């Protein structure tokens, strides 16, 4: 307890790997909160073709469609960032240079994913 403590996350200038790590957690919480509603959407849309059409027309709404795209991107980010953490668990990419590069790669690939998802669904 004698060590200096300054854990206000909003005032610490995080390095890129740190941003990647905290984004992993933020995306995790976002996915977690929406997981059960999305599971319900899947079960509901599977129950009959009419219900499927209801869900389809519901997601034509600009706000919901944007939210859903962000949700899918959050899943993709969590996926890629998780793979990065998994690689590091096995002892690779642990240098500063590799950590920065792979963290940057998670952001770039998520950006590419977001725009290709928008391109494919809109």
């Amino acid at each position: 307890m004698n060590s200096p403590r300054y854990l206000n996350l909003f005032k610490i200038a995080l390095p890129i790997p740190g941003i990647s790590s905290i984004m992993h957690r933020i995306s995790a919480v976002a996915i977690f909160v929406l997981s059960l509603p999305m599971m319900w959407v899947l079960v509901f849309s599977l129950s009959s073709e009419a219900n499927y059409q209801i869900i389809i027309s519901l997601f034509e709404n600009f706000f919901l469609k944007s939210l859903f795209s962000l949700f899918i991107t959050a899943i993709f980010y969590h996926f890629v960032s998780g793979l990065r953490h998994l690689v590091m668990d096995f002892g690779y990419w642990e240098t500063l240079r590799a950590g920065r590069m792979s963290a940057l790669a998670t952001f770039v690939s998520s950006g590419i994913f977001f725009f290709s998802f928008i391109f494919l669904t809109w």
Partner: protein
Amino acid sequence: MVTKLYKLKKTGIFDYVFVRITAVIQAVYFSVITFYWLVNKDFKYEQLSGFFDILIIEIFTVIVAISIAYHSVQGIWNVATDYLTQAQIGASAKLLRPAVIGFSWLQALGLIICSFYILG
């Protein structure tokens, strides 16, 4: 790298390893779904219900739901015990932390129950 899996209790190594195993299960599942979505250019109700009529996929969905349940309970516990502490947010942590962890258990249970609707 962690190799001492045999110390199951106390150390949390079982949790450490199992969080990663469940993560890989989900990664495979969502890769399969994304691949199926990409190869079906004209995606309609038939494609969706046809996909979830395949028995292996249905069983896989239940396994993945259990995986997500475990993974999210562990993850939310990690996040909650890091940030929802008395040092971070004060006395409200005493109530908020168990509430969030309890909610994660409920939601995890709900996911597993929902997955059985897809199976049945």
